[in-house]
């Protein structure tokens, strides 16, 4: 079952084959859950709820997925993103989506360490994670999709419903904002700081 393609598994699942649905769920639940988890800044309860809703839709209305419009992971993540926005709209949560000038960048996670000097240690990875969570949503999304989930620009674009060029520019901006958040830690950042400001 695990060697079958997503499209084949979905057809079997729609025909009532439970093992096919289980295989699909096992294959994609992690990325959906993590996408929502990071998009919400670590709200595990909401991530659980949205993940469940995404796969409930897959059970009840599998025909909504159109394979000609993108991959199944892109469809699932796009659905999760839409559900998340609907949830925020219902709850009237004010999600700050600052302009591309990056005004929302905070300096709370900046430490006195040379973060970029060793970005693989546990502490600095945590700092980097916090920096990502503090990014404006539109930039956080592309970092999650392209860096954490390993998606190509085109696939991420189908999740976000925007052109691939926009994904590329947002990712570039996101990285610049990460530099900005981690600035002041070592001389190696001086050149970058001038570029992103």
């Amino acid at each position: 079952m695990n060697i079958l393609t997503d499209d084949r598994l979905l057809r079997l699942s729609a025909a009532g084959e439970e093992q096919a649905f289980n295989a699909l769920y096992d294959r994609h639940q992690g990325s959906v859950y993590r996408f929502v988890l990071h998009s919400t800044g670590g709200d595990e309860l909401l991530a659980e709820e949205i993940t469940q809703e995404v796969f409930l839709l897959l059970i009840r209305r599998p025909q909504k997925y159109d394979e000609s419009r993108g991959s199944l992971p892109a469809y699932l993540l796009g659905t999760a993103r839409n559900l998340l926005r609907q949830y925020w709209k219902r709850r009237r949560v004010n999600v700050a989506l600052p302009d591309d000038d990056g005004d929302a960048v905070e300096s709370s996670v900046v430490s006195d360490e040379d973060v970029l000097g060793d970005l693989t240690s546990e502490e600095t990875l945590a700092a980097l994670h916090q920096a990502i969570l503090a990014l404006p949503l539109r930039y956080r999304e592309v970092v999650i999709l392209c860096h954490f989930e390993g998606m190509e620009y085109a696939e991420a674009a189908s999740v976000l419903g925007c052109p691939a060029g926009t994904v590329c520019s947002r990712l570039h901006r996101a990285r610049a904002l990460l530099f900005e958040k981690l600035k002041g830690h070592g001389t190696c950042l001086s050149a970058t700081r001038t570029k992103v400001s």
Partner: protein
Amino acid sequence: MFERNENESQLSRGLDALAATMRQQAPAPVKTRLQAEFRRHASHKRRLRWTVLSAVAAVALLVVLWQTRTPRIVGPPIRPTIAKAITIPVQPPAAVPVALTRRKPIRQARTTPVFIALDDSPVEAGLVVRVKSGELEADVLLGDDGRAHAIRFLR
């Protein structure tokens, strides 16, 4: 430029390292709930499919029955029954029954029933069997070979 590239590279390595630690999974109860919902939904779909199929089959059966129904048939088909079997001296049937050449053979058969030859083979002895099927009643002349050689319609 070199420093900027170095920082980009370090950030990429940091993001890759962070991505490698991102292995969060949805809690197990989510899967359990989804499996229960999947079974419920699949069962509902099966019931719906059977209902539709049954309805279609019922309609098809009604159409077939309506098309094949005739005014005389009001119940299940009646199987032919042997009313009685008698042995009579057999006379050779007429070579060419008049009834076949008349314009109204049925009326003729009713008034003066005669045996109609079913083949040309001579019959010296045989058995006349009366058969009845619905409103049709006839005598069939069976030869020694067990084959029907002539028939006489009574009703």
